């Protein structure tokens, strides 16, 4: 407990770092995941831009990257991170790696949610002469928005969990804080303090996500 008090400044910095990492990763990974998910959705046989080769390739590529153990994945993308953002370590490198890794996972969530849009409304838009891109933007995405919000909330919670590995490449955040000062030093008070703050963040995010989805779906 004393130790926790002592570490208070680091604790708050870690909290801020977690927010920063999760927010940025959700933004970047969410964006690319959306793109990839849209590619999966639109190129699947019978869909708006159905294209078997593209679909198969994207499908295989995503399945290639998703199951790679994350620590191996980080090591593998470090050179790439250095090239793009100038460093292979620290919070930003983690955000880089996590953005890539999460975009593959997010793409699946996006794909699934887009698939729930009823074919009838897509047909209606087609009948009005709308092109595939427009249909995606103005019909498919809005119709799937409620479930998509829940999907992204799911991802956000998963990201909070994943940022805990930040410590591995010199990043910070509450997860790394809990591991470094709590778990690895056998200090349960510190571990749980960090975990509880994480949980509070997540509850807030989930409540917001639920609320938003309910507002959008009107049920």
């Amino acid at each position: 407990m004393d130790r926790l008090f002592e570490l208070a400044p680091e604790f708050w910095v870690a909290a801020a770092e977690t927010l920063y990492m999760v927010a940025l990763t959700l933004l970047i990974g969410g964006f690319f995941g959306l793109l990839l998910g849209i590619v999966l959705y639109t190129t699947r046989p019978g869909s708006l831009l159905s294209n078997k080769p593209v679909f198969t390739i994207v499908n295989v590529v995503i399945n290639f990257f998703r199951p790679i153990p994350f620590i191996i994945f980080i090591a593998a993308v470090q050179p790439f991170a250095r090239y793009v953002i100038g460093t292979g370590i620290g919070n930003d490198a983690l955000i880089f790696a996590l953005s890539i890794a999460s975009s593959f996972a997010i793409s699946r969530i996006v794909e699934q949610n887009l698939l729930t849009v009823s074919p009838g409304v897509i047909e209606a838009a087609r009948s009005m002469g709308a092109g595939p891109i427009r249909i995606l933007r103005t019909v498919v995405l809005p119709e799937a928005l409620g479930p998509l919000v829940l999907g992204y909330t799911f991802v956000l919670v998963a990201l909070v969990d994943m940022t805990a590995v930040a410590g591995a490449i010199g990043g910070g955040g509450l997860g790394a804080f809990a591991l470094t000062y709590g778990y690895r030093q056998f200090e349960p008070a510190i571990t749980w303090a960090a975990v509880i703050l994480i949980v509070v963040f997540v509850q807030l995010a989930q409540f917001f996500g639920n609320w938003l989805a309910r507002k959008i779906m009107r049920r």
Partner: protein
Amino acid sequence: MALVSLTDVTKSYPSPEKGGAPIVAVDSVSLEIEAGDVFGIIGYSGAGKSTLVRLINALEPTTSGTIEVGGRTITSMPERELRGIRLEIGMIFQQFNLFNSKTVRANIAYPLQVAGASKAEIATRVDELLDFVGLADKARAFPDQLSGGQKQRVGIARALATSPRLLLADEATSALDPETTQEVLQLLKRVNREFGVTIVIITHEMEVIQSIATKVAVMDGGRVIESGDVFDVFSSPQNPSSARFVSTVVKGVPSPAEVAVLRERHDGRIVTISFRDGGASQSAVFLDLANAGLEFELVYGGINDIQGRAFGHLTLAIRGADAAVDAALAQVGARAEVTEVA
């Protein structure tokens, strides 16, 4: 030249049963729809009517045959080019297919946005349409907050929004009360007359055909079994199925079941006399009967009006001496078609 022309068009779906024969929804249909027509399509449920119109704006690929719209072959046209053609075609869907995530207003605005209308144009046009379909107070409601008929009206407004050259209406009034139906039909009539919009309308309400269609095709089992001017098909259907449909609005010769009912309530002989526009004078017929000293009563049927032409089948119960009736009927037979039903 015809605005829409189908040549030997077939559409089949794979069988739901594994290894079963494919389901032929539309079976070698050839059809010409002229610009300015209000073309009705009627037929049994499952006859292939919806499938047929979905082929006309290429929402589904044909299995074989060619479809031309405005002189351009749309079968085998790439999707990108089809888009230009579809901008000119409005469609009212049998299941409405409204955008659930958009308000009524946004649903109706959508095709205008696709067509590239300006914000101001859209606002004016949508207000106009909302007013017309009587949903001004529902502008901000979402489809799941609407009644069945309200949904259908949104679908109608949406299809009309861009003032398309060709309107495909699949059971456009099936969920509407008679009065709203009349209003919608009047509007369709007006756009047809004033703007020359060609309308293809599927319906199972013969009144709809009667009141707005100029041509009609009857489908059965994927095929067009009869087609022509509405007056011709309705006043003298050639095919038994067509006759049965027509009979819901045009009371023709009563069916045996109906005759049995009439028989119970009326004595005398029951006879149907058919009149066509410009044919026999009714008063002459009634006079013949009255002069023969017969008592008679109109028990079934009435006079119909299609596109300003009248025709009808009047079934009378005639009481009197058999010989007198025979004589009178012989006389009437010279003026109009007489069918003795009981």
